């Protein structure tokens, strides 16, 4: 009885406004409310609201046979509250159906798992509270920012008591194995506890998320029937097909006029046409299927790019410098104020940890004069870096005035 496991990521960062060096010590407001509001409303209109309506309809029509999972970052939820409360209500309605699971992640969509274990635990706990409060669920499954995962992350997640982690089905990690079975974190990392691994089937996921509207793709146009046929081919060779993608795939990355919504509306019935197939949420998957093997991840993986690594966020010197500095600022803040730290100050710092700020500084796609297709509010990665560094200079000088950064050596 193989399953299709749909999991969608919903995230919006608090983008930083254009912030000059000459605003340092004068202007302590960092975020671009206007832009953030505009983006959220636009995405809500193009993606969240119509897709949620479609999902709700599908859940009802299939009377619980169609099931899906989400993780929605804290920064996205906060912006829904501010700019599109109806979006949040539509997610709550989905939660009430009982067919939708909410997965835990870091509240701020940060790279804390890699940079700061304590901070990571705090952000996971904060997100957990949010999911409980809004959707009445206590998550058993964890997904890290951008599916960033390694043995070390597995160990951290295991210590937090999760039953499973969502990760990328990276070829070099899987080797000859298929992502279509459930695996588990090596037990020496979990004190013997079983923590399962759900690995993304990136070929089938990316057929929808990236290739759906690509007219140069030989399989274009992709119909629900054709896609279901590919899924059904897994029969006998796997327990689960994990289709993990950004929720913005629907209506934002693939515009409505590509036919993505029609595809989505027909997919469940096409999958369910073979009676042995069903839909399952991550928790159902781990309850239903045993782990076939322990799977070590010797390197940091993510779901980004062909490399499936972290170079999109820390592939150059600017990114490393910005990340190291911003995490050090937080550590010093915690050392200085301890539990008495102003929650608003802490919240501001944490919003600066959101991975998008570092993604905007990525130079690897900016090569060869290509204007990078990925969305960035900046004209270049260098401007992204300058803006960010100006902002954290103000933050540092405001809250840690005693910390004098050395002026860098003259380049020799």
């Amino acid at each position, binding site marked *: 009885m193989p399953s299709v496991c749909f999991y969608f990521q919903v995230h919006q960062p608090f983008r930083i406004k254009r912030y*000059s*060096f*000459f605003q340092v010590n004068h202007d302590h407001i960092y975020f671009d409310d206007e832009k953030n509001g505009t983006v959220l409303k636009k995405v809500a209109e193009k993606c969240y609201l119509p897709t949620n309506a479609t999902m709700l309809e599908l859940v009802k029509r299939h009377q619980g046979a169609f099931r899906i999972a989400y993780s929605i970052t804290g920064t996205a939820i906060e912006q829904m509250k501010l700019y599109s409360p109806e979006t949040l209500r539509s997610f709550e309605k989905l939660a009430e159906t009982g067919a939708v699971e909410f997965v835990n992640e870091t509240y701020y969509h940060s790279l804390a798992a890699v940079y700061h274990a304590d901070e990571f635990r705090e952000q996971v706990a904060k997100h957990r509270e949010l999911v409980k409060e809004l959707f009445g669920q206590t998550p058993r499954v964890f997904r890290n920012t951008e599916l960033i995962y390694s043995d070390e992350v597995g160990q951290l997640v295991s210590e937090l008591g999760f039953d499973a982690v969502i990760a990328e089905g990276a070829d070099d990690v899987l080797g000859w194995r298929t992502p279509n079975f459930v695996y588990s974190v090596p037990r020496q990392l979990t004190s013997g506890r079983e923590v399962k691994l759900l690995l993304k089937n990136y070929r089938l996921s990316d057929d929808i998320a990236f290739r759906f509207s690509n007219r140069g793709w030989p399989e274009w146009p992709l119909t629900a029937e054709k896609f279901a046929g590919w899924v059904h081919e897994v029969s006998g060779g796997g327990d689960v097909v994990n289709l993990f993608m950004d929720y913005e795939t629907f209506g934002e990355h693939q515009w409505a006029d590509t036919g993505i919504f029609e595809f989505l509306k027909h997919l469940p019935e096409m999958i369910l046409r073979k009676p042995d197939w069903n839909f399952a949420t991550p928790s159902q998957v781990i309850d239903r299927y045993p782990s076939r093997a322990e799977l070590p991840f010797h390197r940091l993986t993510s779901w980004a790019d062909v490399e499936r690594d972290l170079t999109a966020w820390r592939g*150059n*010197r*600017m990114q*490393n*410098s910005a990340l190291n500095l911003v995490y050090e600022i937080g550590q010093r803040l915690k050392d200085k104020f301890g539990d008495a730290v102003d929650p608003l100050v802490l919240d501001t710092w944490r919003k600066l940890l959101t991975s998008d700020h570092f993604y905007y500084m990525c*130079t690897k796609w*900016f*090569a*060869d*004069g290509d*204007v990078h297709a990925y969305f960035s509010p900046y*004209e*270049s*990665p*260098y*401007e992204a*870096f*300058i803006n960010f*560094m*100006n902002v954290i200079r103000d933050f540092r000088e405001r809250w840690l005035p005693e910390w004098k950064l050395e*002026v*860098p*050596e*003259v*380049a*020799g």
Partner: protein
Amino acid sequence: MRVLMLGWEFPPHISGGLGTACEGLTTGLARHGVDVTFVVPELFGGEKSDHVHLVDSHGRITDERGTLHISDETEEADDGLQFPAKGRVRTKRVPAMLMPYLTPETFDDYVSKLKALAGELSTRGASLRAELDSVGIESGALSPTSARNPSVHYSWDMFGEVSRYAARISELFSGYSFDVIHCHDWMTFPAGVTLKKMTGRPLVLHVHSAEFDRSGAHVNDQIFGVERWGLENADVIIAVSYYTRRILNEQYGIPLEKIAVVHNGVYSDTVRERYRSDRRWPSRIVLFLGRITFQKGPDYFVEAAAKVVPIVPDVLFVMAGTGDMRQRMIDRVHELGLQDNFYFPGFLRGQEVEEMFSLADVYVMPSVSEPFGISALEAIKFETPVIISRQSGVSEVLSHALKVDFWDIERLADLMINALLHPELREDMISMARNEVRRLHWEASAIKTVEVYRRVC
């Protein structure tokens, strides 16, 4: 294909980017089998000419080693010319008193320098006097005429020179065999148009800089007129950027379909380490290198510097070059109390330029209107990251640069400060820009130029 190319200067005797561009383009063209005869008003010896036939308006040529000779073709026709064994030629021709980008003001300045030289008792002074006398100009009469007399604008002047050059060139080359005439910037346009009319060969005008760029709102109507007349008479026009193409269309009324864009290139050899290894200056260096004129935006550089110094005191702003705004900039620097943070080395050439680019931590090109801006590519060649104005052609081809509207002094200062404070920013920029510049080679420009020739041949 044989191209007769008319230019104004050729390395190493250059006053700006034009000579560099001509050398690069002709090198690229030679690699594509195009036979180029390059004419300049004056050869000085030492010009690299292994890829091109260099000829000046006196009919002199240089050989592969850069030694000056009278060319074979012109020797017979011009039997009056003579040259000594070492190639230092004396002729009885008018010295071409032309430099690219002369304005009436700088031309007058140039003339008065020449006058001073003619008054010298030295051998050079004497020979110049003899030359002038031989063409009926009394050296004593050499004076900037008549800027005050509107009816005889520049009688012994730039425009006279331009037309004399046109006459001389047509005399030298009307019997010469070539497929296309290719002229660089306005001073060659009359010569180009004359040759076209005499020979019926197609005319390509290459615009590296227009009067509109150089002078902004205060365009010289006469230059503007020569430019427009030339452009209208051309068979096809090459602009060094889309930026320039737009100006030629909007300001000169030239239809867009007549204007092709060929971006400049750069050679990507690197010699930075040599200079970096024994760096003498302790402070960080922000470099301006170019003519210190309205067009290059030196005033924006100085005003931005004033905002940087309080934050990064350990910084040296180098403003290299000459131009009619230089003294004003020096005065302004003193007024702002920035004299300890500023250095005006004057006009740098050859190795000095290489050294300066290599030593700089960041190069700034705040041009008000820059058709291309090849110096930004030169800076990157020496591994120096660049801040460039958006009002430049080079910003169309360079992604790995910081870009700013020239008038936005605070933003310029912001970018300078960050470039100075963050070596990681400089390193990432330069490591990406280095690869980017490799693609901007002259061969690519040459290929596009050949396509333009084919449109008219």
